[in-house]
């Protein structure tokens, strides 16, 4: 529990992912502060879903997420189209494997 004057120190940040009732995948919708996962889930229900039925919510402590660094973007996501040796196109496709 948070001691008086400690502010939000005892309330870590959580990231919230919601899958709508007819949605196919969980989408990141935002973040919130909560003392633990249970309350993070309940707060997310109030803040992001208005308690609609049939939605699925994931909460993840922000500290558990490892993000790719913007500085390394070039190295991470450089299009590899120009690296022809990465593409397995140097052999003939056998007959009868039309949909390879």
């Amino acid at each position, binding site marked *: 529990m948070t*001691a008086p004057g400690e502010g939000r120190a005892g309330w870590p940040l959580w990231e919230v992912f919601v899958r709508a009732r007819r949605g196919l995948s969980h989408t990141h919708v935002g973040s919130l502060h909560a003392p633990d996962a249970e309350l993070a889930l*309940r*707060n997310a229900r109030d*803040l992001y879903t208005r308690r609609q039925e049939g939605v699925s919510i994931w909460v993840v402590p922000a500290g558990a997420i490892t993000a790719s660094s913007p500085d390394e973007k070039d190295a991470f996501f450089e299009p590899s189209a120009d690296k022809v040796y990465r593409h397995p196109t140097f052999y003939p496709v056998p007959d009868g494997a039309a949909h390879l």
Partner: protein
Amino acid sequence: MNTTGAPVHTTVDYLLGLGDDALVAAQRLGEWVTAAPELEEDVALANIALDQLGAARLLLSYAGELEGVGRDEDALAFLRTDREYRNCLLVELPNGDFAMTMAKLLFLSAYQLPLYTALSGCADERLAAIAGKARKEVAYHLDHAGLWTVRLGDGTEESHRRMRAAVEELWPYTGELFVADPAAPVDPAGLRAAFLANVEPVLETATLPRPADGWGPTGGRAGLHTEHLSYLLAEMQVLHRAHPGARW
């Protein structure tokens, strides 16, 4: 005066009791807005207040129609005095600290959940529909109050002390909720076992002793309230009474 199909035992007074519980609880919870310990809790308390207000509107509208003298939800909310209010004493008590508010919400929702569950199967279809809607909301309120009771009771020494004091101070007010009324659509006397089944495990997990039963104040259902209700109504009704008949 009775609507078709409605059994005779749904009385105006009974509906006012249900509706006033929800209305006064909503008013008290509304006092927390922008004053809660955390932003997320602020939103949660406002959410619960809105749920209770929504149930109050449906119940008071139905009470007004059943009464048949032209009083709508606004007339019933804003133009009755404390002697005409039928809410239980528990909901009109001041908010106190956060522990007090959570104990009040725990007791109220632990009572409303079995009540609305039973009412959602009653013969009065309109009341059953209102109760069916409110039941889902109240299950959430109970969950929320239970989580906080455990966190505070099993938290720091100071939070334990406060939560325990709140539970002990409010426990006598729960007696009034279960005073027998065999003429009601659901006799409150039959709800106490379910209430205890909702409350006792929470108190145990929260390391809080379950207070002993003893004398408890009553009178709310008869319009005999604590000194707190008339002040609450003065604030709630001031604008309506200053401009009677205005539309907004």
